[in-house]
C-alpha cells in the first residue's frame, strides 16, 4: 500500500521508498523517510495534490509522488 492509497484520517508509517526518482529524494529531505508517520487529511480541488500531516505539520504532495512511498497503515487513534 502506498501513501496515495491511505483513506481520510488514516495513519501510516513509511516502510520503503523508491529512491530512484530525484524528486522523491527531494521529498526525503523534507522528512519523508522510513519510520516517519503520516496522516492523510484531504485532497485539493480535483483530487490532487494530497494533504498529509507529518509530525503535526501539514505537507502536500502530488499523487504521482506519493505513490513512491510504501506505507503500512496504523490503527486509528494509534
Amino acid at each position: 500500500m502506498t501513501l496515495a492509497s491511505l483513506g481520510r484520517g488514516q495513519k501510516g508509517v513509511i516502510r520503503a521508498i523508491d529512491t530512484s526518482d530525484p524528486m522523491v529524494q527531494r521529498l526525503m529531505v523534507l522528512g519523508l523517510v522510513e519510520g516517519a508517520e503520516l496522516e492523510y487529511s484531504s485532497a485539493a480541488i480535483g483530487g490532487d495534490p494530497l494533504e498529509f500531516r507529518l509530525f503535526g505539520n501539514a505537507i502536500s504532495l502530488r499523487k504521482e509522488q506519493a505513490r513512491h512511498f510504501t506505507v503500512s497503515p496504523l490503527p486509528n487513534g494509534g
Partner: protein
Amino acid sequence: MAKPSVTRVSVDQITVSRRPSVSIAVVGNPNSGKSTLFNRLTGLRQRTANYPGATVEKHVGTATAGKAVLELIDLPGTFSLSAHSTEERIAVDVILGRMPGTNPPAGILAVVDMTNLYQGLYLVQQLMELELPMVVALTMSDAADLKGLRVDIDALQARLGGVTVCPVVATTGQGIKALRQALAELPGSPQPDLPAFWPELNKAAEQLSAELQGSVRRIEIERALLDGSGETEQEILGRLGKDRDERVGEVRRELFGDEPPLAREARYRYKWVREILDEVQQRAPPLTTWGSRFIAWLNRPVPGTIGLFVVMAIVFQAVFAWATPMMDAIDAGTVALGSFLASQMPEGALASLLSDGIVAGVGSVIVFLPQIMILFLFIILLEDSGYLARAAYLMDRVMRSVGLSGQSIIPMISSFACAVPGIMATRVIPNRRDRIATMLAAPFMTCSARLPVYALLIAAFVPAESIGWINLQGLVLLGLYLLGIFAGVLTALLLRVTALRGPKPPFALMLPEFRKPNLRTVLMQLWGRVKVFLRRAGTVIFAVAVIVWALAYYPRSDTVAWELAEQQAVAEASLTGGALSEALQGLEHQAAADQLAQSWLGRAGQAVEPVFRPLGWDWKISAAVIAGFPAREVVIAVLGTVYALGDAADEATLAQRLKSATWPDGAPVFTLPMVFGLLIFYACCLQCAATLAVIQRETNSWRWPVFAWFYMSTIGYVGALLVYQLGSG
C-alpha cells in the same frame, strides 16, 4: 567535531566602532518566523539590495546586542543546504561564505519553528557541520503551547552540544532580550562539544580537500559529494576539474554504495532528529477551540474552495473599489497641477514640458501606487497568515491543466487590476519556468487601464440593446475579458511545450498553520515593495512619459501658431462674451490638433498608416496607438487632441466625434469590424512600459520583455486584421 577554523573576534573589539564588523547569517526553514524575528532584532536599521546577477533581494540589518553591533543577513528560507532554487542557492552560498559582495558570516542564528522541530533540526544539524558559532532561536513558542507541545530546552541544548537555545515569540518580543545577549556573546563562543555527526563523510572530504591543496574547503566538498545535482554543488564539482570526476565517483561509491547520496543524507540525519525529538519533546492533546475547528473545516476541499473564491472576490473588489477613487483623485490632481503650472508660466516649450511632460510623467508613476499598495497589502497579509500556500495547494491541479502552477493563482488574479503588481507577485513561484510562463500570461488579463478604452468604444459603437436579459454591451465586455484569459492560457500552454519545456517541478509544499499576521512585518514588507516599484519601474515609466511628450510636442510649426493668432484676432473682432470664449477654445483645440498632426508623433502616425491601413485605421488612430504603446491609457487623451477636442475631452463628445470621422471619400472610419478589430488589438497588445520594465526586473534580462512585446503585438495585429478583413469582406 573537527577542529574549528573560524577567526574569532572578541566582543571588546567590536565596540570600538558602532559600525558592525561581524556578520551573522539568519538561517531557517520557510515560514519559520525568520523574517519577523529579523525585523524584531534590527527594527528600521535595514537595507535591501539585490544579490549580484539575481533578482533575489538581500536583506541586511544592524542589531545591537549589549555593547556589540552586529550585521544580520536575513537569508531566503531553506529546508536544507542542498540548493534547488535560486533563493536556496543564494542562502547556501552566503552561509558557505562564497557570495561575492557579502561578508562571510562569523556566526549563525538558526531560526527553528518550535512547532516544526522535525524539519528545523535537520537544517540545524547541517549548519552545525559548518563549525561556525551558532545560536538557535525557537520561534512560535506560543503556538507550540496551543498545540500541546512541550520542549525541554535544557535537554535540547545538551543534545546540541551546548549551543544556546532561546525560545522566543517574535511578534510580542518575548525572549528577545535573552536572544540579544546570546548573540552578543556569539562571535567568541566555544564550539559545540559533540562527536562528529558523520565521521566517514568528514574524513573522505578532508582527504579530497588535501589532494586539492586545500583550494576547495572540506565543507564545500561534503556538500558536493552529497548532492551532485544541486546548484551550488554543480559549481563546486566543476571547480574540482574533469579528472576528479572519477575520484568523486569512487569516494561516493565507498560512502554510499548504490544508495542515492541525498537519500542517504536524509535517512542519516532524520534518524538523529527522531532521537532528539523522542527525548526533548512531549506532545499533549492540542487545545480544541472554535477557531481551530473553523480552520480545520476550512481545510476540507469544498469549504476550502468556497473560502478561496470568497477571498479572491474580496481582493478583486478591494483593488477596484478602493483604488479607483484614489487613482481618479491622483489623475485629477495631476491635471490640475499641470494646468496651474502652465497658467503661471509664459506659453512655450518649458511650460509644456513641465505640465504635460514632467508633472504628467510623475503622475503616471504614482497613479499605480494605490493599486500596488492595496494589492500588496492583501498579498502580504495572505502570505503571512499562511493562506497563500493553501490557495496554491487548492488550485494546483486546476492551474496545472492550463500550463501554470498553483502558485500562479495570485499573480493571475492580481493582473486583472494591473499586470505590474501581478508580475511582481510571481516571486512566490519557486520554479523558474512556471514563473516566466505566468509573467507572460499575466499581461493578457484585462487590466484596469484597458477599461476606459473598452468603455469608450463599446459605448459608442455597440448598440445598447438587450437580447432577452443579455445586454449587448455587457456581452462584448465579457467577451473581451474571456479573450484575455483564453490568450493568456494559450500562451502559457504554448510556452510550456516550446521555450519553457522541462520536467514538471516536484510539488511539495509545507502548508503553514493559519496565524495572525504581524502589523509591523506587514508594513515593512509593503514599504520594501513600494520602494522597489518606485525605483525600478518608476524611472522607466517617467522617462517614457517625457519621451512621448517630446514626440508629440516637437517640432513646433510657426505656420500653425501664426494662423491661430490670425484667427483669434478675427474672432475677437467679430464675437463677444460666451460665443467668443467658445470660439477661442475651439481654435486652440484645432491648433493643438494641427500641431500634433505635424509633430514627430503625427508624422509617425502618417508614416505607419500603410501598416495599419489593412486594419482599417487612418493616421489618427495609428498615431494614438503609437502614443499608447508606453501606456495604453494615454490613447484617449491623444484621440481627444487629434480630433481637436482638447486632451481632457469628455467621453460622450469624443464618442460623437469618432462616429462622424470619415475617410476622404466620405466613408466612416469607425465601422463595426474596424472597432472590433481595434478592441482585439487593445485586448492583446502589451502597451505598457511599466509591465515591460517589471518583466525585465523580475527576469533580470531584456530577452523576455522584448519577446513578450513582439509576441503580443503580433497577436493583436493579426487578430485585428482578421476581424476587419473578414468583417468588411
